[in-house]
């Protein structure tokens, strides 16, 4: 492994770990659920993305041939992280968790007839 690759890898690994750490730090530091939600969805996803990129480069350099299957995990995380965040936010609103803010006003469309998701 050349020194340049090694420096790049070390940088990516450290950056990934720092972002993962900051994401979990947000979980501890913030006071209400809705602000806590931001740390894990964003910082942690990018952190793990950095680590997976580092892993991909590492195995491409040391192993035989290009190693891209780490991309699959990062892609999967990038697709699923917002979905779980959205569902958790929805569940929290449903349970009426306090947010330290004025309650979000009811949206206009809520009084309308609910649309069945599969009405084709």
């Amino acid at each position, binding site marked *: 492994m050349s020194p340049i690759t090694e420096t790049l*890898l070390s940088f990516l690994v450290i950056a990934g770990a720092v972002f993962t750490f900051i994401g979990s730090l947000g979980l501890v530091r913030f006071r209400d659920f809705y602000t*806590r939600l931001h*740390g894990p969805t964003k910082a942690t996803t990018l952190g*793990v993305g950095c680590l997976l990129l*580092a892993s991909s480069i590492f195995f491409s350099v040391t192993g035989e041939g290009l190693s891209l299957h780490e991309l699959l995990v990062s892609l999967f995380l990038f697709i699923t992280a917002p979905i779980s965040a959205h569902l*958790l936010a929805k*569940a929290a609103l449903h349970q009426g*968790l306090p947010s330290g803010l004025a309650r979000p006003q009811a949206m206009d469309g809520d009084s309308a007839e609910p649309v069945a998701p599969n009405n084709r």
Partner: protein
Amino acid sequence: MLNMALTASFALVAAAFAMSLFRLLKGPSAPDRILALDTLYINAIALLVLLGILLASPLYFEAALLIALMGFVGTVALAKFLLRGDIIE
């Protein structure tokens, strides 16, 4: 140099584990605990990827992929349960 970076990263991710565990135990509400579980499984993926680089073994990739899949399904099922009191409609 890479080994030093890996050691430091292990410490950081372990600290992240501890903080998520704190939120999991403290709560105070059910969505908080689910969020903490969600973070724990992402941290576990990070730890497995780091271990794979340290041991230069591509075997850990499959475990990471499986944890990513199962963790997502688990989070969605729990959130759905909170939303409807029922998982399968």
